[in-house]
């Protein structure tokens, strides 16, 4: 299977430092992401991987550093803008909307694209109805893509973990993102589920050309599917390069031997 061609740098993170009341979560992290590539950020638990993502999509505001996306540079990101610029993400410890079913969860990812005003919605005639239907179809394509048809109307809270992860991915895909940030998409899954998830990630990257930044704490899976890897440890960057380069990196090895997983 031929993989898509990797393009220019689209997302550039420079010297990011973040701390919570004295506790340093990230120290002077820099790395970049190229168009269409699968970029992994790995590191032991608590290495600051999630914090990194949270800085990128504006959940946290770093004390120092800047983030450049498609030529625009920000010293801090605003979640809304980030979403509008086409950066979507999934969450490590499922952040689904528990009270809604699968369709609505994924539908909520279409929110930015829905334009009818509150009065049209209240009357639900014409535009509003048409809009709902149009987006429903998009959502159904995602459901089909993720093979969760059997659960489309199940409240997500009732789904097994592996499926919830898929819905989470679905919600992100619904935003038709250019960059997809995946926070430990395979954490806590059994082998089949992991294989499925890998397949989905590759297919997304392959079919929609979506650039993917994914976080994992265990190297195994990630190394096979990612083009380049950043390694964090205790909030510091200790390695960056192709999977092979990283594998042979002394610091990385020691960091990993140091942690059990």
């Amino acid at each position, binding site marked *: 299977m031929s993989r898509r061609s990797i393009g220019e740098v689209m997302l550039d993170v420079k010297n990011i430092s973040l701390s919570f*009341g004295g506790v340093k979560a990230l120290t002077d992290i820099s790395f970049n992401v190229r168009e269409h590539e699968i970029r992994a950020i790995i590191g032991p638990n608590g290495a600051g991987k999630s914090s990194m993502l*949270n800085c990128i999509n504006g959940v946290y505001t770093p004390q120092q550093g800047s983030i450049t996306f498609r030529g625009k540079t920000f010293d801090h990101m605003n979640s809304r803008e980030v979403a509008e610029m086409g950066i979507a993400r999934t969450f*490590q410890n499922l952040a689904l909307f528990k009270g809604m079913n699968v369709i609505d969860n994924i539908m909520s990812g279409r929110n930015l694209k829905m334009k009818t005003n509150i009065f049209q919605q209240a009357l639900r005639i014409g535009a509003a109805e048409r809009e709902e239907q149009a987006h429903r179809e998009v959502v159904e394509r995602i459901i089909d893509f993720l093979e969760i048809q059997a659960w489309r109307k199940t409240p997500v809270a009732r789904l097994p973990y592996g499926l919830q992860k898929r819905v989470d991915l679905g919600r992100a895909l619904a935003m038709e993102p250019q960059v997809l940030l995946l926070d430990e998409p395979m954490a806590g899954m059994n082998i089949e589920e992991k294989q499925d998830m890998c397949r989905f990630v590759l297919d997304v990257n392959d079919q929609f050309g979506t650039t993917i930044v994914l976080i994992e704490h265990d190297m195994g899976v990630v190394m096979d599917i990612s083009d380049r890897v950043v390694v964090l440890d205790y909030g510091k960057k200790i390695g960056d390069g192709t999977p092979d380069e990283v594998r042979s990196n002394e610091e990385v090895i020691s960091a990993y031997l140091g942690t059990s997983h």
Partner: protein
Amino acid sequence: MGPFLETLIGGLMTGMLYSLVALGFVLIFKASGVFNFAQGAMVLFAALAMARFAEWIPALLGIEHKVLVNLMAFILAMGVMIMLAWVVERFVLGKLVNQEGVTLLMATLGITYFMDGFGQTVFGSDIYKIDVGLPKEPMFLLEDVFQGGILVNQEELSAAIIAAALVALLAAFFQYTGTGRALRAVADDHQAAQSIGIPLERIWVIVWSVAGFVALVAGIIWGSKLGVQFSLSQVALKALPVVILGGLTSVPGAIVGGLIIGVGEKLSEVYIGPMLGGGIEIWFAYALALLFLLVRPQGLYGEKIIDRV
């Protein structure tokens, strides 16, 4: 200058009482995560009990010695409050462990209705007096500083002193006693506390009893001031802004908050009230608290909230 100081002191003194009631909230919230709306009802209930026992005892036992009577009445009332605490734990909270905040809040609302109804059926619903012999006649301070000096209501003063003492006591209890430590452990993490063998049920009963005790004292003080009547339960509503101002989980917060609200309220009533047609202290406290929260959402001493995802 004189009038200002007067108001200030007045404010501080009522503030002390707010702190007392607020403390009731904080204790329970810390220990069981319950936002106890029933606190006000408890005050009324306790006061009613106290007042009525103080009437019944002489009638039944023919004891006339006032101090003795009040003492017995106090003990009985306290007993009632402990019973109440046990009932609440046994039949309400015990069933609602790990429920959402709102549900618990609603539960305490239920308790409120129950206690209002029950209390008034058992103890009657007229206006009763409590007389624990707090000095009534006003006194003047610093007469040599300004002419006329500062009028201080002795009753309020003594009340404030009692409240202060009690607050200090509780704070100490919370900090230094084993039970206090257990309480804080529970407050931090139910499961963990349970796993290291702290008996939740007992802790909760204790907390509610303490809250009951606080309510009783508050009830006596307010009661002997305003007379024991339904409006007493509104006291709690005045303590609410104190709690959120101070931070739901902070004992010092409750104290400082109480003082701030007390003073703010009095000052506003005196200096702003007239412009707005008076009676503004019922909402001014809230407005104050609200404004404050906008600056510090977690209250004065509450822990900072960090969203982890």
